[in-house]
């Protein structure tokens, strides 16, 4: 009896019991697959080829690095990432400042901002695909009724305009996170910081660049890191709107991995590709954690 009490009272044992459900699920579904993926990435496992699954060392990684399709998809992911993060941060900051001003209906507009965030990814994709539809899309209708285009355009028929559309759909969905978080940070800003500066005669531009921006910096850095990681992982929009096309014009890295794994059933090669993506994402987050430690956030 006393032994049992001792056991319960010792914090390690209690911690173990309480952590058990979380640890089983997280480590079972996340960490075990991580290791298993690593092992897979060194094999030639193909679901279509019986007897495959032999250890082949770094062959998959080498195969990726010499494959122009790999570099092309990585390059497109780079363009997608830079474009979305740049637009979302700039727009996010501008709209956050706008909504930080006092005006009638402010609470209502702030409430609306959450809508794109809450929308399921698939619905977001279907919605934009429908808007840009070549035959019946509302964009074609508006533009042609305004006289801006002579005939309906096949917006998704061209690689670069398809990429622009996927980027736009991502911006619409993801900018609200930046707006809401920057707005929350702005509201946590001590008011006397600005009052002191305006008494000292600083103009608004100076207040913005010398006080507001530095104050927002940790949040801005955080947002950029999260958004880069999200952009690297983008899959749903591509799957719904373009399936990587046309002419592979929107075949981002995540989609390329999906194709190789679940369409060509090349599990070993797919796992190696997935690992490359993981390393990119982890590098980003480690760099970020280091930067944050220096910044004492």
């Amino acid at each position: 009896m006393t032994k049992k009490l001792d056991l319960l009272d010792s914090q390690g044992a209690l911690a173990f019991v309480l952590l058990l459900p979380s640890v089983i699920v997280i480590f079972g579904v996340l960490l075990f697959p991580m290791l298993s993926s690593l092992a897979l990435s060194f094999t030639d496992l193909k679901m279509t080829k019986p007897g495959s699954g032999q250890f082949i060392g770094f062959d998959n990684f080498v195969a990726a690095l010499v494959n122009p399709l790999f570099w092309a998809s990585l390059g497109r992911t780079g363009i997608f990432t830079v474009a979305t993060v740049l637009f979302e941060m700039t727009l996010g900051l501008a709209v956050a400042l706008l909504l930080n001003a006092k005006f009638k209906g402010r609470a209502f507009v702030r409430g609306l901002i959450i809508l794109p965030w809450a929308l399921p990814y698939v619905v977001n994709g279907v919605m934009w695909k429908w808007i840009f539809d070549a035959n019946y899309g509302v964009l074609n209708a508006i533009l042609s009724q305004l006289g801006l285009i002579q005939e309906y355009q096949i917006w998704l028929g061209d690689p670069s305009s398809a990429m622009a559309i996927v980027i736009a759909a991502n911006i619409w969905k993801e900018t609200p996170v930046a707006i809401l978080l920057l707005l929350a940070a702005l509201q946590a800003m001590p008011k006397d910081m600005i009052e002191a500066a305006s008494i000292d005669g600083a103009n608004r531009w100076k207040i913005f660049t010398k006080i507001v921006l530095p104050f927002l910096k940790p949040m801005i850095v955080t947002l950029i890191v999260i958004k880069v990681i999200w952009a690297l992982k983008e899959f749903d929009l591509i799957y719904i709107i373009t399936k990587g096309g046309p002419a592979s014009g929107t075949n981002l890295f995540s989609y390329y991995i999906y194709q190789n794994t679940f369409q060509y059933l090349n599990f070993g090669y797919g796992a190696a590709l997935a690992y490359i993506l993981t390393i990119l994402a982890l590098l980003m987050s480690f760099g970020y954690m280091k930067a944050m430690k220096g910044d004492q956030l």
Partner: protein
Amino acid sequence: MNLFRRGFPFVLGRTGLYALVVLVGAVVLAPFLWLVISSISYRVDLTSVPLKFLPSSVNLENYSQIFLGSQTSSINADLAIGLFNSFVIAASVTVFCLMAGSFAAYVFSRLKFRGQNVVFSLILITQYLPLIVLIIPLYIVMARIGMLNSLPALIVADAAFVLPLIIWLMRGFFESVPRDLEEMARIDGSSRFGTFFRIILPLSTPGLAASGIFAFIIAWNEFFSALILSSTLKSKTISVLISEFSSKVGIDYVAMASAGVVASLPPVILALIFQKYIVQGLTAGAVKG
């Protein structure tokens, strides 16, 4: 301060401010509004050139078929199943994450054991992992143990993706519960479990609500895991069913739009009602997610 707050678009003045606000509102609302309008239009109106932006009569057929059942449209009957599956998955993930998550958060907030920081960091780092690296072996394992195309497989997978965030959020909320209350209760002879259930949890109700809403929305919106792990109607979620519209030839646009609206309603309504919690959760989750 007033000057700054009032006059942010300093070059534009009040009119400019309102013009910009209306523009922002329109950009946010218009695309979704068009989906809603499309969902209650008749095909004739939607496919007319020049397009009539407002339908000449309202079509609620698809909605009534989804919710009241139908013999004529197999698409809408399937959607009802997808909605049910999504709901079961999201609700189970929420309940599990709240229970397991609050226990784990309690450990990281109130207890000390060797290796604690390592375990905590490992849990947090999983949030940065791309799903695709996890889904390949998960798919193989689920296939081997015959769990593909089952709701439990999706519940377990989604729970693992959501749980780290919930642990992080809950820990933050527990940290803000003053410790002296617990200490007093402990001195009065209350056990650790007693203080957890009678003091910490009740005082963290807003935190539980915020975390629960988060878990539900993320699980409801999750697409990739369901796409890979289920290929039969028995376990397809509403998102997977909607994604199938986009690859069909000769799509029924009205049915697709109404399916999209129906799938959006639960997360959108929750987010609009509990937006304060969402912002809290996003902030806590982002700052050190």
